[in-house]
């Protein structure tokens, strides 16, 4: 006999849990941090957001200042291959045809684009979540609200955006000033036309959650519907909302740029990335950087947001997490 007594079963000897239970968000972060692209995307998004918010304090040139003597400067890197290019160390990304500084404009334009993107995304999330939760929770208005969602889904979005923006430009500009009015208008039209996917996803989740025991328990102790939604339903539908938030941010930024590109966006002296790109297209043969820089900024931001969304979807899905 070499081993007369078998070792006691490990689980039976444990009196306390070996490790403290891990919270859900630690797990989510663990999964998320494995996704290199998502990490890079999130990093870039944070970087670009900070850069457009605080950039104007570090690079304090006024983006609107006309400096006609220094117009049409090239970015300093063009001096690397073209020694005859007009460059100036004071304008690292060159100037445009009116002598406005490229870097300062890029920062100001980014601020407008990101502000529109975030605001429109939040608005569409708010509408989408409200419609989704209400139609999922209250059976009576489920039918009408879902018909409304279907109706909005069958609207031609880009043509309607163009129609709405051209129609309401004048009155809103008169009331809120040219920039403020345009901001409200663009955020509103993008928000109002992009909430439908969120609403559908949230409704589906709420319908499933509603039948679970903890909701029944909450209702049986007399919790009001509003409290149930606030305390039990919303935290549980947070993950699909976060994923559709990233998608919404990407579409909102692209839609705003597209509107600006088609010439129905912000007024001409107010830079946004899409506007800068559109203005630079006629002379892009001589000054390709004026198209490239804002275009690359839009593309990189949207790429970062999309990768972030991809990583979030993997991290927030409990079926994938932990594998």
């Amino acid at each position, binding site marked *: 006999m070499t081993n007369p007594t078998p070792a006691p079963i490990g689980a039976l000897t444990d009196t306390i849990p070996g490790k403290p239970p891990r919270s859900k968000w630690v797990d989510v972060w663990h999964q998320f941090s494995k996704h290199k*692209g998502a990490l890079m995307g999130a990093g870039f998004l944070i970087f670009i957001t900070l850069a457009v918010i605080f950039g104007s304090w570090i690079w304090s040139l006024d983006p609107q200042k006309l400096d006609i003597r220094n117009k049409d400067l090239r970015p300093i890197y063009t001096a690397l291959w073209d020694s005859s290019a007009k460059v100036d160390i004071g304008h690292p990304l060159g100037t445009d045809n009116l002598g406005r500084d490229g870097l300062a404009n890029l920062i100001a334009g980014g601020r407008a684009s990101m502000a529109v993107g975030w605001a429109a995304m939040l608005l569409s999330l708010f509408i989408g979540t409200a419609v989704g939760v209400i139609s999922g929770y209250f059976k009576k208005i489920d039918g009408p609200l879902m018909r409304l969602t279907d109706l909005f*889904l*069958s*609207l031609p979005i880009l043509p309607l955006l163009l129609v709405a923006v051209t*129609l309401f430009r004048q*009155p809103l500009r008169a009331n809120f000033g040219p920039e403020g009015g345009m901001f409200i208008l663009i955020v509103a039209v993008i928000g109002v036309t992009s909430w439908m996917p969120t609403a559908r996803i949230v409704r589906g989740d709420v319908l499933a959650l509603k039948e679970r025991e903890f909701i029944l328990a909450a209702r049986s102790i007399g919790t009001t519907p509003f409290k149930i939604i606030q305390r039990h339903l919303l935290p549980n539908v947070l993950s699909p909302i976060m994923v559709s938030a990233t998608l919404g941010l990407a579409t909102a930024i692209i839609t705003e740029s*597209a509107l600006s590109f088609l010439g129905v966006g912000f007024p001409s002296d107010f830079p946004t990335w899409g506007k800068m790109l559109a203005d630079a297209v006629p002379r892009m043969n001589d000054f390709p950087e004026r198209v490239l820089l804002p275009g690359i900024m839009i593309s*990189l931001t949207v*790429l970062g947001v999309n990768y972030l969304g991809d990583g979030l979807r993997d991290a927030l899905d409990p079926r994938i997490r932990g594998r």
Partner: protein
Amino acid sequence: MLTFAIRRLALSVPTLLFISFAIFMLLQLAPGDPMSQVPLTVPPEVKEKMRQALGLGEPPLIQYWKWLVQMFWIEPQVLWDHMFGTSFAEGKLRVISWQTRSPVMDIVLQRIPQTLWVVGLSYVVGVLIALPIGIYSAYRQYSVFDQSGTFITMIGFSIPPFFTGPLLIVVFSVQLGWFPSIYDTTLVVDSWANFKIQLQQMIMPVMVLALQTTAQLSRYMRASMLDNLNQDYVRTARAKGLSEAVVVMVHVLRNSMIPVVTVIALGVPAIFGGAIITENVFKVNGIGQLLITALFANDLPMVMTLTFIFAFLIVMFNLIADILYGVLDPRIRYD
């Protein structure tokens, strides 16, 4: 299935009516005045008559009713007359564009071939590129091909057409001089040389649009293939000794195509809307460009009709997608 199709078809009528009504009411709020270009020397009573002639004097509801009658009663008659040489629509008023004073549908019909050629071809090209990429990257999941495919589709998602368009123009028509930057719609393809020119001018807009389609579809194809590759029937097919090509290309592919086909159908109207920007960049005078010019010229009947056509396409292709899904997948039963 037939009852489902009929029910959906019947339901799409009120949907379309409501959409057209909403668009009409939205356009009623338009601040512009079609008489603003008329010289100030024209006396007000003449102006009033001109407004009446444009159909503007009536209350909005009657105007809407007249648009409905023109669009759904008189326009089909015109089409009928055109095809069979009858004269039902003789002397009846059609939807008239304020810009050109000619019937809107005539202009739309002139513009549709350009859009269909460029947009339709780009969609076909996009689908043809996307399917093999999706299939192969699912089959070799996490391989180098899959990783780079994912990266490229992400880029395709993220780069907007108003950036890729000018970029391609700079590289290929300005620097290299291979392709013209403006799409020439007057070109008649009657010889080999002209065919070559047509091909050259189509490559760039088609590529810009196809990039978007490819990015979306290959993701769907990959996800759908991945879902099916782990199923039991695949193991069975392999176990009974079928070759790998038959397993993947016949068994798995046919099942994976079900959701992809519906996504392809759903994307058709979206590409019409998305083509607005591409048509603008490459100066293709299709219906997207027509909508933009009509909007800026305050040509409300044209805007109304075009937006309605877009809405009609969306509703119809949603219906087609739903029916296709039911036809292709016998597990789906709608009734």
